[in-house]
């Protein structure tokens, strides 16, 4: 039983899989986790608004990157698309099927088509199963015929591991190799859609590139569609065709990868981009850095109006704290959830500048623009 949302909205329209080039289409998705309290923990005292009204589309054969800070709901969104957490409201269309309403056997069968690569490769592989068992378990589970001699070798070859790996166990591999096994398991079902949740953040820097390149090769070979969830903007930019930026349960900006990185329009995206350190002293010394003060507010008690207004350096007197901005298409394919995006873009509104001492003493959201 899924939790009932305190809010309701109209039922979303049904996309037509024949004409739509989107493989995955998410409409008005909400995932609210009830907070239980009271003497027998049976009373619901509130909700954690982990995902609160998300619309997304992923075109066939492309990669959508989803970035955001920890606690913004990006992993919950990914898990909700695969129905690994209960969906409160909204619909998720994967290859013409509304996954959000499926149950039992139908859902289990639909899962063949969508697979996941997890963050921690050691925790997501059973330590007592050999690699061969790990790779063939999903095939057996779904009753798919396979050639015992060749299938495992084929899979291992695809992810760049020797055939001898089949008889080994997860602990015998390094982190990067384990992640390759996780990827091999995901593609064993020949899915159309793969979600990779932080696929490289647990790996050493020199290994990350190997895994990213592998994901890209597999996409070219197998025509996969990816949703890559990560907190590292550089990684997301590298692998994605389109990027969606998430803040506190909602998408604040969604655009083509190059467009987003060249011209971020939402204040949060701007701050996020300026915060990423670049391994180049010349760039580091010249660029302008927008510092946000404070932390992500609690998703159990999100701010009214724009979720970002408590930390936003561009906040205005009106609208920001009362009205939640819609995701508006300001340019072709570039959607932004900000009331003042045009004015900020035109330079009519500038970021407030505060000294470090003020920032330390006050609860108010402030920004410190500094050039070194």
């Amino acid at each position: 039983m899924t939790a009932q949302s305190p809010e309701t909205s109209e039922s979303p329209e049904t996309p037509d899989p024949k004409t739509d080039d989107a493989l995955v289409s998410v409409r008005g998705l909400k995932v609210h986790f009830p907070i239980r309290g009271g003497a027998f923990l049976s009373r619901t005292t509130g909700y954690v608004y982990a995902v609160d009204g998300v619309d997304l589309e992923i075109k066939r054969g492309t990669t959508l990157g989803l970035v955001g800070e920890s606690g913004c709901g990006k992993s919950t969104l990914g898990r909700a698309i695969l129905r690994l957490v209960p969906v409160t409201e909204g619909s998720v269309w994967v290859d013409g099927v509304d996954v959000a309403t499926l149950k039992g056997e139908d859902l289990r069968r639909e899962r063949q088509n969508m697979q996941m690569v997890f963050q921690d490769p050691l925790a997501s592989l059973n330590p007592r199963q050999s690699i061969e068992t790990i790779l063939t378990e999903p095939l057996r589970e779904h009753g798919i015929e396979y050639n015992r001699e060749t299938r495992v070798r084929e899979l291992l070859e695809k992810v760049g591991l020797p055939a001898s790996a089949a008889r080994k166990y997860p602990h015998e591999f390094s982190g990067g190799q384990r992640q390759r096994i996780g990827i091999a398991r995901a593609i064993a079902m020949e899915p159309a859609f793969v979600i990779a949740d932080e696929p490289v953040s647990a790996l050493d820097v020199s290994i990350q590139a190997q895994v990213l390149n592998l994901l890209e090769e597999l996409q070219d070979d197998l025509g996969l569609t990816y949703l890559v969830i990560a907190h590292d903007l550089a990684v997301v930019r590298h692998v994605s065709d389109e990027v969606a930026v998430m803040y506190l349960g909602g998408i604040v900006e969604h655009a083509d990868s190059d467009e987003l990185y060249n011209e971020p329009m939402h204040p949060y995206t701007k701050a996020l981009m300026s915060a990423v350190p670049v391994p180049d002293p010349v760039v580091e010394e010249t660029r302008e850095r927008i510092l946000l003060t404070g932390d992500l507010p609690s998703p159990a008690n999100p701010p009214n109006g724009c979720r970002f207004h408590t930390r936003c350096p561009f906040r205005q007197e009106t609208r920001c704290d009362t009205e939640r901005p819609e995701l508006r298409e300001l340019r072709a394919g570039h959607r932004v959830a900000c009331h003042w995006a045009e004015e900020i873009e035109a330079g009519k509104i500038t970021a407030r500048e505060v000294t470090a001492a003020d920032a330390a003493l006050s609860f108010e959201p402030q920004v410190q623009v500094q050039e070194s």
Partner: protein
Amino acid sequence: MTVTADFVDSSTPATETTRRGALNDDGTLLSVRDLAVTFGVRGQKEVRAVDEVSFDIRPGEHIGLVGESGSGKSVTSLAIMGLLPKRGVRTSGEVRYNDENILGWPPRKMSGIRGRDIAMVFQDPMTSLNPVVPIGIQITEVLRRHFELSKKDASARAGDLLVRVGIPDPKRRLGEYPHQLSGGMRQRMLIAIALACEPRLLIADEPTTALDVTIQAQILELLKELVADTGAALLMITHDLGVVAGLCDKVNVMYSGRIVESATRRVLFGNPRHPYTGGLLESVPRLDSPRGAPLKPIPGSPTNVLPWTRGCAFAPRCGNAVERCATDPPELRPDGDRELRCHNPLSADQRTEAVTP
């Protein structure tokens, strides 16, 4: 073989901060010479985690120690602080401070320096704060230990410190427990504790790895500011080349327990000569590089090493490896504007390839 800081930017203040204690004879604040740390487990082969590590830290200077997990960077910092376990560990070499070798000092003697002259910020703020002790006590503890302040004075000072690290409403916060704070706040607390006694050297071991990017930017900015205010020197230990690029005067790159390249940051990032440094820079996706430019990964994994006693540890993964690399261990030698441990460094055209994004 030693690394001397004779190519340090002349802009760094080399004369100041004699306000407390003396410097070493050669004008350095802390000087590490041929540090080696060996871990032994009975019945198993010994592991040499750190070997031949030498570097200098001058007053006010920011030094970076970069490497992947297992490269020995954290063990180096623990050895300097005297925090390695007593059993099963052998250390050799020198850590000179105040013209004395503090390596292997007894704990009682070491605790006079630790926290007061040399302080440390750890990676994980949740595990390095005591979860059952209010934050106020954890900050005043270090103040009272070193300055013999009264409880009242100490907590007044702790309040000031919290304001300085950007924590609003210090009175309330001092009575709170670590779990009541967010990750960024906890890291600020740790920095407050580390800077409470205005140390001469702050060792920051991956201080931002557990944090989000926007919080990371806040913390790095704060560290930079506070270190500049107090005139402390900074030893920054990280795996993130981006963090080092914006912060450190000089960078030491470690691989498998030894320093393989050491230079000022502009030289190092503009012109990496060790194949490992170059490989690292090329394999990291950059925010400002054009999309679709393929990453050139370093093949193999960091566990795939040759023992330094036999040859170059990086040789099995190195694209530039020559026959000598597997048989003859390279030495750390001065090479123009840097120190380098390599038989066949990247050539000029390989380097231009590496720097053009």
